[in-house]
């Protein structure tokens, strides 16, 4: 009896494995919620606020996709993932998309079989040290103890950087950002390294941020973006163009305040806004959604610039400048393909 139950369970596991390949869009619609993988807590990017509501730069992408697909920005199940669990969660179908400041790399795209839909933050790996150590360059860090999040590209960059410069270090692997903070503050490591944006967010959460300095060296390219599984291109397109809609809206001056007005009637003077907001053309239909998808996505928390300023911009505690993440019209790298 026990044996047959065991075999039945195995068979069921085998069959359900075969079903995961069905269309993600249909799954999400049938379920009524979007399962979005986020970080376990990085203020500004993804962290629950005092009311337990998830807030942040990456969270806003999830909400925009949920609004575009389901018409409800709150129909998102946020799944906290660590650097180690995120890819398994996505590959196994536990989450529909991953928006967890994840670096777009060749091997993740090709070998791990994921589809990066774009870049929502151009970042690079930096180092943070207590100001009292008097370190001014990462090359002075010979022999230092370095706290590092395990399972990330930063782990590999760090090994490369120290080897290339012929200096030694002692790595202290840590599972999450939240665990790294006390270790760094207690002095169990001299240096904390992660993406520069993450360092700024972590430092902002400290009691005395001015006691810590971020070193000038940026040792890697870290283009961070949302990703989905390989093979479901329709779903990939939806996430990709929702992100592009946010970026294009900034370029075209569509904000959360004026999107309703602009979507009310087609303005012959602004054809691309019309196509974006569905008052002209059938872009929404091509995606398998309705014409209002981008209007809903933009109504949640506005365009890219608004999301940036509200969560991680210079007016927030994290205080990141736009820098590379300005629109190409302002000398940055953000450039969305046209809505045509």
């Amino acid at each position, binding site marked *: 009896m026990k044996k047959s139950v065991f075999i039945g369970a195995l068979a069921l596991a*085998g069959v359900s494995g075969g079903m995961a390949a069905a269309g993600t869009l249909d799954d999400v619609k049938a379920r009524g919620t979007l399962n979005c993988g986020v970080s376990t807590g990085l203020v500004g990017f993804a962290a629950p606020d005092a009311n337990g509501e998830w807030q942040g730069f990456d969270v806003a992408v999830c909400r925009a996709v949920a609004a575009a697909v389901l018409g409800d920005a709150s129909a998102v199940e946020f799944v906290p993932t660590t650097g180690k669990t995120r890819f398994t969660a996505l590959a196994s179908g536990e989450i529909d998309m991953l928006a967890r400041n994840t670096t777009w790399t060749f091997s993740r795209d090709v070998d791990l079989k994921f589809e990066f839909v774009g870049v929502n933050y151009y970042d690079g790996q930096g180092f943070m040290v207590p100001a009292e150590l008097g370190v001014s360059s990462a090359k002075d860090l010979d022999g230092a103890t370095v706290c590092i999040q395990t399972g990330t590209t930063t782990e590999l960059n760090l090994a490369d950087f120290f080897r290339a410069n012929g200096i030694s270090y002692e790595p202290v*692997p840590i599972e999450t950002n939240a665990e790294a903070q006390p270790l760094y503050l207690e*002095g169990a490591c001299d240096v904390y390294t992660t993406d520069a944006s993450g360092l700024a967010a972590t430092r902002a959460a400290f009691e005395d941020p001015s006691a810590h300095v971020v070193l000038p060296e940026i040792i890697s390219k870290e283009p961070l973006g949302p990703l989905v599984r390989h093979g479901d291109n329709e779903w990939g397109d939806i996430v990709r163009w929702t992100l592009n809609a946010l970026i294009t809206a900034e370029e075209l001056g569509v904000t959360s305040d004026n999107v309703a007005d602009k979507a009310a009637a087609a303005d012959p003077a602004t054809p691309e806004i019309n196509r974006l907001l569905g008052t002209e053309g059938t872009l929404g239909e091509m995606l398998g959604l309705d014409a209002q998808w981008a209007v809903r996505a933009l109504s949640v928390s506005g365009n890219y610039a608004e999301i940036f300023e509200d969560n991680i911009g210079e007016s927030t505690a994290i205080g990141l400048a736009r820098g590379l993440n300005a629109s190409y019209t302002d000398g940055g790298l953000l450039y969305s393909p046209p809505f045509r």
Partner: protein
Amino acid sequence: MASITDPPSESFKLSQLLSDTRYRSYTFQFIALIALIAAFAYLLSNLFQNLAAAGLDISFGFLSEPAGYDINQRLIEYTSQSTHWRAAVVGVLNTLLVAVVGCFFATIIGVLVGVLRLSNNWIVSRLMSVYVEIFRNVPVLIWILIIMAVFVSVLPQPRDFRGEDASASMFLDMFAFTGRGFYLPRPYFTAEFAAGATGWLIVLALLVGSFFGARALSKWATDTQERTGDRPTTWYLTLAIWFVPLIIAMFVMGLAWEMPELKGFNFKGGIFARNSFIALTFALAIYTAAFIAENVRAGILAVSKGQTEAAASLGLRPNRIMSLVVLPQALRVIIPPLISQYLNLTKNSSLAIAVGYMDVTGTLGGITLNQTGRAIEAVLLLMLFYLTISLTISLLMNVYNNSIKLKER
């Protein structure tokens, strides 16, 4: 007059497989076995089909690619350019180190606490009960985290040792106890012929020699006792056998000590026992010791009181009663559950990543799995490793168990 007839010759017909009760059960078992194999074959092929459909193939080629990441505690040569396989081996050695050291201390603490819990002293026995109940009833992961947190926040960091008015100082200028771990003096040999590992091999050989020497001496003492009734005093000879060759060897090979020194960010030189290693080993040892203490107590209580009384009436002193009469019998009860405690400790060491200790779950099952995305392969290898190590421990302990169990003649 009886005639002897041959027994009817064994004729076997195929139908007997079903009709004859002697064979029927075999038939059915055979059929069940075939069905079971077929079922597993179907499930496996299903698994491989689904993996292929998802674009995943099982391949262990990634093990020979460079790992790309660094590991802090490595017992063998390893750099970020070494292969994933070597990273896994480094992890395996780290796991074994924690397991061996943890089992060693767990046994010592466990036996001590188990015996003391039976003490006639009310305070001592109650204290030991409190220890057992507290450690046994809180999950080991919590203990690991608590000990690590206390370790890191209570002990001074290397930067506190720096400067003129340092708030911390080294103990005897030889030991530095910091929140990052303990720095201890490292012995090494200055003589040319004993440089590196050679010297330690010589020491090991001497120790093995001393062990057999001491055993021969003890055997001689026992023989003498059986012949004459008097046991010769041998303790100073035993001490000499253990220490004289060692001290001579140390002198010849030029033993010297490398002291830890504060240089730059950290102490350099000496032996470095990392905070993660100490916290993990300590937590596992005291947690498992609580269980072992209960096993020991149960084992001692299982020896009937008549044995103790009989020994006492022969004039044996209490500690001789414990070591000569009670413990040898109690061990028979203690060893089998002790095996499973050792296995538990070894398997619990996979919680190492909670404090950033790079055991095999941290290297092969953590970073390698994550960087290569080879989840199935990595987890299969991990299972194989833990299975092998657990079965090996079982085997060794069973051999020991057989050697001490009641010899029935």
